[in-house]
């Protein structure tokens, strides 16, 4: 299994930026790699712990699925919501083509 202290490389940072939809240039990749490597280096401290048999804790309290009555209630005003959007058309959010026009 990968250890928490594994080094992080520029190629990792470039890949992660792509996954996170963040356009960053090579100089920024280098900058962030240096900073993240330092932070990740600190994180190797938990490799010393014996975590066998310890269950993960995702929430402070157990969550249950909450359902409300299926009845009509007031909701956000569509015009007001669309007015705050960068672009809208025919009462919908407008976005550029999903696939580039040149593709």
């Amino acid at each position, binding site marked *: 299994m990968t250890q928490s202290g*594994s080094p992080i490389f520029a190629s990792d940072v470039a890949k992660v930026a792509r996954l996170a*939809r963040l356009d960053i240039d090579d100089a920024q990749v280098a900058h962030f790699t240096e900073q993240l490597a330092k932070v990740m280096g600190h994180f190797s401290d938990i490799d010393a*712990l014996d*975590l066998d048999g310890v269950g993960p804790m995702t929430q402070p309290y157990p969550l249950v699925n909450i359902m409300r009555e299926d009845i009509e209630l007031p909701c956000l*005003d569509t015009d007001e919501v669309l007015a705050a*959007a*960068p672009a809208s058309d025919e009462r919908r959010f407008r*976005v*550029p083509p999903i696939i580039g026009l040149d593709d």
Partner: protein
Amino acid sequence: MSAIPSTASEIAAAVIAKRITARAVIDDYLSRIDARESEIHAFNLVMAQDARAQADAIDADIVAGRPVGPLAGVPIAIKDNMCTHGVETTCSSKILEGWKPPYDATVITRLRTAGAVIIGKTNMDEFAMGSSTENSAFGSTRNPCDVSRVPGGSSGGSAAAVAAGFSPVSLGSDTGGSIRQPAAMCGVVGVKPTYGVVSRYGLVAYASSLDQIGPFATTVADAALLTEVIGGHDPMDSTSIPLASPSLLPSVSQGVSGMRIGRVTDLPAGAEPEVVAQLNEAFAALEAAGATIVDITLPSLSYALTAYYLIAPAEASSNLARFDGVRFGLRVNAADTNSMYGATRAAGFGDEVKRRIMLGTYALSAGYYDAYYGKALKVRRLIAQDFERAYEQVDAILTPTSPVVAFKFGDKVDDPMSMYLCDIYTIPTNLAGHPAMSVPFGTGAHGLPVGIQVLAPALGEQAMFRVGGALEVAAGGAQ
């Protein structure tokens, strides 16, 4: 017309008794903001006109004999990550600049119902990520105690607004210490209630299993009053605990006689000697007031920082995926949707937000999930179990809030790890989901304020406020 009182409870009492008008109160506070805000920069937005109209409406209710709430005429500043209907809510980020939410957060609705007057939206580290408010896209906030220093963060604007006398009370949010640490650095009271006690509906999410809203105040009693007003079940938040808001004000003056207070013998090192000295003073004061000091150990505490800085960024990387230029905020136009996302997010987010999104994405990515995120969740369990064992022996635990007093601008901003270490004592309680508060307790290096942190078990707010009230008295404060 009498002088304007300085606490929320006194202001409300005077307004309700018609000794002063809500309008006179708000005018007084707005004039204080006028005099010093250019130096402090606590606010992203001062809502002068709107605040005067809210105050006039309260006065009209009082003249007409209509019932008003326990915060009638009390000005309150709101961290700029809580939605205010029709009023710009930016999270101090370029990606939300100019965004006007189409609804109020539940805490805003509750404050308005209680008669509070929203005076403005306060500056913060972008998306609540930071410990100094230097990560705001709109410029840093200065510490009113020493303007060459940071106010702490991420709720630095809310802490500074109360410390500077711009508002008697304010709201912040606390994911890893973002209320308590700036409270300590600015010399005011700050409370993070139990996870689930205060509704997060309308709070822009950073790390959903950790975030909690809470108050800043100049007195422990005002912090208790605010917690009572904003607390209690909300059907709009699925993580809201289905209980009524706790009664807290009586606890503040109850004293600590017979209480067992934990002293952590294996507390992670790194606190300044003056901070440690104040902590020892605080133990002595509580013992003199009738409490018993009990030595306890929390062996997993030193791993909390790692667990937090994996879990919080992981949750943030998911929560902040919604800022994509489609439905609100900034859009950088591009030929296709994917390029638009990347360009918008690159232009809209600052460096610390990018760092945490990338850290979280990395910790969650295939091949690394078990080594990072999975392990961090197990460490979180160990920390919760440590607290569980400790609270079999004690009613509350005392630690420093911050290892250091307020530092100079630029000291830590390019060294993320040294900035993260500021949260070492505040983070464990968020991981466990417990309540905690910071109470000003004397001064440390350079005569700057030191905060002592009171920790209590889940829903242990009453015990926490008993200890907080006793510390305040010992420090020579309100009674």
